């Protein structure tokens, strides 16, 4: 019995000594906070923060390169946790969601040619800018749906993309994936939105889509406070000062303006 204990103890001692020496020899410094932050991150590796995955982001935060509240998926809670680990306080950011600024589905927006090729917006956009007559219209080939890590984008029956705002974490992947730049990150609290990006003038725009903004400035005049402005024959909402009065919807001759409730959030599992 004693021999057994001694032998094992001796073996352990030798091994331990060897490892201790090796550890001295091959020592690597790692900031323990990096692992801590890595643990509380959502682990979706979506890249919404601009880093190549969650652990890269954690490294960035510890090195002071990344903003602690830059994780769009984790939102305010994660930001607060990261702040606690880093010993700083984080101001709460307002929730935002992605929004597809196009209503030109197949019933509203005609095509200008028959497209034959890859089922991918980015590829299709290389061929004559896409088959929609409207130069800013959703091509409906689902690039955004493919890149969304949260299943928060669906294709409508009319063949355009729609963000399911409850699931959206505003990681911004769809924004970069869209070759037509019609997906925008908007504050979830804003009630009124202009769902068009067509910069063509009146007649041309009207031909391109029944939901096209023709730049008539009615909304700009109605709101009058700069919350909606028309530039380049296209109205847009100033999201730092979003319009609140739903009455403006009736002003738009082409029904570009919509009231949307984007503030609902899916229950986190």
């Amino acid at each position, binding site marked *: 019995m004693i021999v057994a204990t001694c032998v094992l103890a001796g073996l352990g001692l030798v091994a331990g000594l060897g490892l201790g020496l090796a550890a001295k020899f091959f020592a690597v410094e790692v900031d323990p906070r990096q692992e801590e932050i890595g643990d509380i991150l959502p682990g979706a590796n979506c890249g919404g923060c601009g880093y190549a995955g969650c652990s890269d982001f954690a490294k960035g935060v510890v090195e002071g390169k990344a903003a602690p509240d830059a994780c769009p998926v984790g939102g305010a809670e994660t930001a607060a946790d990261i702040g606690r680990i880093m010993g700083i306080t984080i101001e709460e950011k307002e929730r935002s969601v992605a929004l597809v600024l196009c209503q030109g589905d197949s*019933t509203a927006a005609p095509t200008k040619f*028959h*497209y034959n090729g890859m089922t991918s917006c980015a590829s299709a956009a290389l061929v004559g800018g896409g088959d929609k007559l409207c130069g800013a219209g959703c091509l409906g*080939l689902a690039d955004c749906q493919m890149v969304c890590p949260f299943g928060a984008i669906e294709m409508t029956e009319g063949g355009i993309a729609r963000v399911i705002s409850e699931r959206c974490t505003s990681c911004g992947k769809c924004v970069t994936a869209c070759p037509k730049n019609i997906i925008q990150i908007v504050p979830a609290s804003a009630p009124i939105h202009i769902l068009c990006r067509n910069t063509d003038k009146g007649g041309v725009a009207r031909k391109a889509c029944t939901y096209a903004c023709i730049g008539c400035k009615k909304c700009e005049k109605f709101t009058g406070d700069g919350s909606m402005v028309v530039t380049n024959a296209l109205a847009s909402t100033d999201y730092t000062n979003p319009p609140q009065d739903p009455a403006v919807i009736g002003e738009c001759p082409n029904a570009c303006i919509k009231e949307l409730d984007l503030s609902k959030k899916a229950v986190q599992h």
Partner: protein
Amino acid sequence: MSDEKDPKTSPTPPEGDKAVEAKPAPKKEKPAAPPKLVMSASPHVHKGQDVTGIMRDVFWALVPAVLVGIWFFGLPALRVVAITVGGCLLFEWGYLKLLKRPGSITDFSAAVTGLLLAMNLPSTSPWWMCLVGAFVAIIIAKQIYGGLGYNPFNPALVARVLLLISFPVQMTTWAKPSSIIAFDAATGATPLGALKEYLSMGNTLPLPADQGASILQLVIGLRGGCLGEVSVAALLLGGIFLLWRGHIRWQIPVGFIGTVALVTGIAWLASPGSYASPLLHCLSGGLILGAFFMATDMVTTPVTRKGMLVFGIGCGLITAVIRLWGGYPEGVSFAILLMNAATPLIDRFTKPRVFGARKLYQEAKTA
């Protein structure tokens, strides 16, 4: 972007979509609005060959050997062919329908798989075994990988090896070849099986005349074996047809058969008493069937000529090793499956040299 998942690869215009004349352009009296044109990326012309065409050619190339098999093994062989081909088509059709996936059984690929499977079964195979084989080939080896083009292993071979391991008795019960009219229920052995048996009892070659098969018998196919592998002549006919049509490249069959001949030849020269002649090795078993039809399956073999040669040589090496020293009398199926597994690696290391690249491909990427 998985175009095959999406039915919209070539979007047709939605119905009720009125033709809108070209573009907002300077208003001028134009002749009648031009037709809505088709747009696509270049090139705008195509050779005209498609997957269905290739598969159809492969199918017809297999037919002579199957007919010979049916002639020698009679109605049971016909039954095996009917069940496997029918089963494969049925499973493929059912799966595609059930999972609403694109693709169609009319592309002949399932039929070719079924035919190849039948050719790799003894004519005495019970019906349920044929069905199990068809299921394994189509569903497990092909469809759950994503269907045509994505299966890493040859479906028919996966099915054959699975059956061989699971039902060794049924898979090695061979009917004696006779002819369709005079069906003979007697069972016999394959030349390679007889050889292995004979050698394992400690005998030395040559084989007694009543146990082997003459060269002529091997060439026309009058010998025991799987129903599609027996007739070397019919198989060569189909193989040459495929070579001529350009659907298979010479590198694989030549590399395969050449290596088998070389290795067995060396062994035979070293010890003619314990190893059979390379001629016997080349003409018997499933070598010709494997080399021309199974090892040349496009999906599961390398894409480059160099890679194909490596693939063929690898197959030949493994086949020869298994035949000469292994437990199984025949190693073609195992060899091809193993090389299928190595195909991604072969592809990786046999890339052609990029035009104008000074260094080899693998290094060029860092430059």
